[in-house]
């Protein structure tokens, strides 16, 4: 499976969802990526995961977040200071997803969701691509796809969704 086919499948599944349901999906992705930021932050004593946690909580409570880009920029690592470090990229993507969610909450533009989806596959792809010729057929990435589809079905059925322990964060920690 190619990345485009992969993203297309998720986009198609998300299309019938309402704005609120899409926001719920985005929140689940943000929570899925949060451990990557926490691990990076603890390993390098950098940034502040509380800022992300607070922003996620605000979105859940329907509070309109004021423009938080300055705050988010401050807690993002610069790759020039952490070159080639997969955890640093994961931390950047985790912050960027929360930022996209804040924007989406305000302008309801579905483009933000596209960025959120591509972020969740970026790190597993970078990790798997080191040893697989067909990264999008790797069990770790396929499991991620299955998880996202399960979330979408549950959101549609108005059931609560679970965020399982993030296996890829554990793996990238070893190579970072």
């Amino acid at each position, binding site marked *: 499976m190619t990345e485009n086919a992969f993203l297309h499948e998720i986009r198609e599944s998300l299309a019938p969802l309402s704005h609120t349901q899409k926001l719920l999906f985005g929140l689940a992705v943000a929570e899925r990526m949060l451990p990557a930021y926490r691990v990076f932050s603890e390993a390098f004593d950098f940034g502040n995961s509380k800022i992300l946690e607070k922003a996620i909580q605000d979105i859940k409570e329907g509070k309109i977040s004021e423009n938080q880009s300055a705050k988010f920029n401050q807690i993002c690592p*610069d*790759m*020039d200071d952490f*070159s080639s*470090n997969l955890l640093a*990229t994961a931390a950047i993507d985790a912050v*960027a997803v929360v*930022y*996209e969610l804040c924007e989406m909450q305000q302008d309801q533009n579905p483009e933000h969701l596209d*960025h959120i989806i591509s972020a969740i596959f970026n790190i597993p792809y970078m990790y798997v691509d080191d040893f697989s010729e067909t990264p999008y057929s790797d069990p770790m990435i396929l499991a991620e796809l299955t998880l996202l589809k399960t979330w979408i079905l549950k959101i549609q059925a108005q059931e609560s969704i679970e965020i399982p322990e993030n296996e890829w964060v554990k793996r990238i920690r070893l190579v970072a």
Partner: protein
Amino acid sequence: MFSIDPDKRAKELHSLISPPMAQNFVTIAVLTTENETVIIGTNERKLRKKQVEALLENEIEAQIKEDKHAEEKVIQKALEMGLKGKEIGASRPICLDCEDLIKEESILPKTELKGKKSKKRQ
């Protein structure tokens, strides 16, 4: 005959980084060489999938997973391949360490120079 502006090309590839906010923290470098091979590098572990898909026939990725800036990676790759670098462009201003290396290798920078070291190297 290929003729590219490495500064413009670096910024094009940089704009493919999604989510866009991540672009503020990542650098893409593009090095042209005398044999028309163009070397692309990032300060991330590797190029993102969309960037890899956008590479042209004569463009190759400097797959170097060391603690190096994007500019350093493309120059290292050229040296490993025995190629002479001509012009270099980057998606963000070039730091002092990279500027020194660029001068050392007699490569022409096509992007603004920062004139100072990056934070971690100060």
